[in-house]
């Protein structure tokens, strides 16, 4: 069981290229079987089983396939991918190379968000060094694998973290999510089979090949295996990147980071849920409160309506505008929050807003729209006494 520690504990201890060497010594099917057996699930937040994704892409028949690393880390409160790319970039590229071997891809793209442009030079140097050492290029480490990675920059659009929007952006279009199916594993970048995985997922995959699926399964819970990086911010004594096994309780996390006495925790960023103190016994895991790792701690004096307003302003700004529930719904929810703040919202209208939020969850086209009302709905559910009947001036 990995210890509860600040920083990148497991990743920093990785032996360079151990996972890649192990992978190249085995047939592709065994590599995928190992990842599947580890029960590794996507670290970006959605939690799709990585082995299943790789298997689908491996099964697709096409002359060219793509490995895409999603480094468009835009979720509010998330910064662990930045730290991974700054401290252990080789591990991520190792994971991408293993994925290329597993699915039969020759080219990869690292899609780096525009806000992280200052990381680009150092990443280019890492790529150049890997090419020199024969870890990228033709015949990697004497194997038949040829694979190289290029860096592409985002341009400040949160929605491009959604995998089909990311692919649209790579192809030179507006970052508007596609209808699915077809899924990227069949028809992705340039209409060719593509896997899109989060930065941390690739690093985990490299660890799985190095240390084995059994080791990985030994950390975390039955359903949510492995160590997980959490980006902790807000009202606590020790904000930063922390590593915990999945399945830790929120109370346990708060005790470690010095956030005891919190009134609520936002788990999963703007698209996640607001968990009140009464539910701090719940676990952070795919079967509990799922998360890509964003933890924002709210101390006892924070105004939760202000928090809801901030998140809705974010979604109004970042909605791609393609589908009506998300584009219009978030604007109406924001207007509603401002009515609550000014003490002008009736009980009946609040019910309407909640119904609207549920419609948005059901009817929006992509994950952004479907999750955009989550924070609002959970704040209304848990903090109703605090947000209703406000007097002018807005404070509870």
């Amino acid at each position, binding site marked *: 069981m990995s210890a509860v520690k600040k920083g990148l504990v497991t990743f920093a201890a990785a032996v360079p290229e151990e996972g890649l060497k192990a992978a190249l010594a085995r047939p592709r099917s065994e590599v995928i079987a190992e990842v599947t057996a580890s029960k590794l699930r996507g670290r970006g937040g959605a939690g799709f089983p990585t082995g299943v994704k790789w298997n689908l892409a491996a099964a697709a028949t096409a002359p060219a396939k793509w490995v895409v690393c999603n480094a468009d880390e*835009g979720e509010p409160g998330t910064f662990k991918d930045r730290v991974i790319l700054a401290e252990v970039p080789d591990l991520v590229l190792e994971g991408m190379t293993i994925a290329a071997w597993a699915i039969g891809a020759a080219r990869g793209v690292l899609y780096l*968000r525009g806000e992280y442009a200052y990381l680009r030079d150092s990443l280019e140097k890492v790529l150049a060094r890997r090419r020199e050492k024969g870890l990228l290029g033709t015949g990697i480490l004497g194997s038949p694998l040829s694979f190289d990675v290029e860096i592409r*920059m985002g341009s*400040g*659009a949160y929605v491009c973290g959604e995998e089909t929007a990311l692919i649209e952006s790579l192809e030179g279009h507006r970052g508007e999510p596609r209808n699915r199916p077809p899924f990227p594993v069949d028809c992705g970048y340039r209409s060719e089979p593509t896997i899109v995985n989060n930065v941390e997922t690739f690093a985990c995959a490299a660890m799985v090949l190095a240390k084995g699926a059994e080791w990985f399964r030994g950390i975390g819970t039955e359903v949510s295996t492995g160590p997980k990086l959490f980006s902790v*911010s807000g009202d606590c004594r020790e904000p930063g990147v922390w590593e915990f096994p999945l399945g830790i309780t929120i109370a346990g996390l708060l005790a470690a980071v010095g956030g005891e006495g919190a009134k609520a925790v936002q788990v999963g960023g703007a698209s996640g849920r607001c968990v009140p103190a009464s539910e701090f016994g719940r676990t952070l895991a795919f079967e509990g409160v799922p998360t890509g790792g964003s933890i924002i701690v709210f101390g006892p004096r924070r105004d939760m309506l202000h928090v809801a307003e*901030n998140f809705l302003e974010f979604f109004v700004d970042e909605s791609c505008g393609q589908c009506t529930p998300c584009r219009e719904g978030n604007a109406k929810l924001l207007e509603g929050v401002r009515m609550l703040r000014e003490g002008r919202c009736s009980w009946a209208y609040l019910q309407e807003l909640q119904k609207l939020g549920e419609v948005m969850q059901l009817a929006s086209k992509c994950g952004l729209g479907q999750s955009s009302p989550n924070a609002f709905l959970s704040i209304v559910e848990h903090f109703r006494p605090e947000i209703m009947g406000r007097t002018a001036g807005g404070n509870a």
Partner: protein
Amino acid sequence: MLVTERLRLHDDIGAWVAKHGATRAALIPVLQEIQRSYNEISEYAMQEVADRLDIHPVEVYSVVSFYSFLEAKARGRFVIRLCRTVSCDMTGKDRVARQLENDLGIRFGETTRDGNFSLEWANCLGMCDQGPALLINDQVFTSVTPETVHDLIQACRKSFGPLAVQGQKGRTH
């Protein structure tokens, strides 16, 4: 636009298209190069890119208008983007914002008349544990306070260090 400026833009775009390839997938990298060197993507630039990539200029405009780091209207040499997301909000981004407006004499969304500074909001810069955070062009600054705002602006004005290189108007590649 002066004829000489047009010619230079024409040559620059030609070089960038040659570098990234004359395909639709090259559109955003080419636009990013224009933005970085010219601080704006003018209608003339959009038409030029459209011709080179053999797409309609409206397609180019559609992409420019979608991404917040691509801008059709001219921005300052130094674009200051302050994070407004919740963690930076809790560490006092409003006071930093006020001081930036006071010291630059502009509001968010505006550019100073000398063309040196633009002030914009950004959504989560991924510095949530070290807020308030802001970007000046490509560089990130954390734990900014109202008192340090002046120092940051002065550093830009004096144009020393790596900041100066990135903001130069019309810099050739």
